[in-house]
């Protein structure tokens, strides 16, 4: 069974601080996605990474896929209250449809 472990589970920081969220597995994935979910809504896709070592940037968010495609990280620079939410990583395999989700990191950014 493929599993994705996210850490930390909960993070409360002050506006302007930097943070990193980790997503780890013992399994290899062909692609990995990061989602953000706000209360009462479904997850919204932020990014998909597919190549080992790949780095993608989305404004203040930097996503990295591990060289072995078993892990990923999300780094947020100068966090803002609008970044508050549940961040989920999810992995998929080539030709497959099942998406394996991590349990999520709940981020709270205080003004």
């Amino acid at each position, binding site marked *: 069974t493929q599993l994705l472990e996210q850490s930390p589970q909960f993070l409360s920081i002050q506006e302007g601080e930097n943070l990193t969220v980790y997503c780890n597995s013992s399994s290899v994935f062909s692609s990995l996605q990061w989602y953000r979910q706000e209360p009462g809504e*479904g997850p919204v896709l932020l990014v*998909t990474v597919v190549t080992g070592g790949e780095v993608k940037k989305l404004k203040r968010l930097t996503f990295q896929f591990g060289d072995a495609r078993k892990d990923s990280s999300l780094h947020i620079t100068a966090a803002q209250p609008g970044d508050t939410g549940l961040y*989920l990583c999810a992995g*998929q395999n*080539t030709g497959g449809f099942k998406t394996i989700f991590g*349990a*999520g990191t709940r981020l709270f950014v205080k003004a």
Partner: protein
Amino acid sequence: GAGVSQSPSNKVTEKGKDVELRCDPISGHTALYWYRQSLGQGLEFLIYFQGNSAPDKSGLPSDRFSAERTGGSVSTLTIQRTQQEDSAVYLCASSLRSGSKDTQYFGPGTRLTVL
């Protein structure tokens, strides 16, 4: 255009009752997924529909759970004889096609509470 919609948004039921949850996917999307999200947890895969192919039901937790997709569009998830452990948010997602790198668009979910 319209996104994925789900109804009802909230459902409170008594233990032992049957419930039906509805999902309207984005028009033209051939793939449809149902997930369950318990409090503080990630998403648990339940069932997957792709076009006219037989659905993959491997994620359904028991035979009390079933789902159908009529005309390749609207889907209904049915839970019979509900139990308290069925309480969760049920999320539906649709995508243009299956496979890795395919973007799933999620509905807002149905929050089910079994008393």
